[in-house]
């Protein structure tokens, strides 16, 4: 498990333990990863987050178009594993969760403990986010240049 900020860890840990979810990804509504459990590569995490955020955003747009209220959660049921996507409010803005789970647990259990996690996150969030400024070195342009050159083979 990895989380961007430590206060996310305990609620997520207890969700994972109770729900038996296989993979869990928490992200901002624009698809930036906040915490994850169970993924292998960081680049795969980013792809899953981009797609998950896209699905939630387009579904919310669809709901708005139909004049209805937001969908609480999207469930995709597969034969070997299922997936839940749900947007929720936190003191840090709207987040999205992507949860993948197998037949060892159930939709009902995942949703029950997911709601508990949302509540725990709401109380665990520190009032004032700590926002230190990243200190990029003055010559970071050279590093950037070198990195991009190495990346694009030039």
């Amino acid at each position, binding site marked *: 498990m990895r989380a961007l900020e430590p206060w996310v860890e305990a609620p997520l840990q207890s969700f994972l333990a109770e729900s038996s979810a296989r993979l869990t990804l928490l992200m901002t509504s624009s698809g930036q990863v906040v915490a994850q459990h169970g993924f292998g590569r960081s680049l795969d995490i980013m792809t899953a987050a981009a797609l998950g955020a896209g699905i939630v955003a387009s579904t919310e747009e669809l709901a708005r178009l139909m004049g209805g209220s937001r969908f609480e959660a999207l469930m995709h049921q597969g034969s070997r594993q299922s997936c839940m996507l749900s947007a929720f409010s936190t003191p840090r803005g709207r987040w999205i969760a992507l949860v993948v789970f197998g037949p060892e*647990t*159930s*939709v*009902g*259990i995942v*949703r*029950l403990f997911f709601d508990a996690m949302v509540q725990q996150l709401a109380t665990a969030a520190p009032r004032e986010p700590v926002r230190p400024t990243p200190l990029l070195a003055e010559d970071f342009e050279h590093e950037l240049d070198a990195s991009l050159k190495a990346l694009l083979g030039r």
Partner: protein
Amino acid sequence: MSKVTAGLDRVTRVPGVRGALIANSADGLVVAEQLMDGVDGRAVAALAGSLIARLARTAHSAGLRPPVFVHLRGDEGSILAAPGADGLVLLAVVGREANVGLARLEMLAAAGRLA
């Protein structure tokens, strides 16, 4: 009144029964419910549904057929479960003083009509 709600109605009339619901034991979601205030049907469906599914697996490992009635007793009350057809299960939350024998009979009758 549909057969299903009629069944729930008969179960909830038994003294000590605080609520009855029908859940899908595979996904742990509520299908229909009749609950007193303070009983969280969603939590009952998820938690009891999961336990019933596990007990069915345990019975299977012991070479037994799936359970027809389950009584989970806690020191403050009980959950009763009567699995029916199509993965549906009739659940009841009862207080310590409930007439479990009567509730069981009503539930077995109602579960037989589930489908």
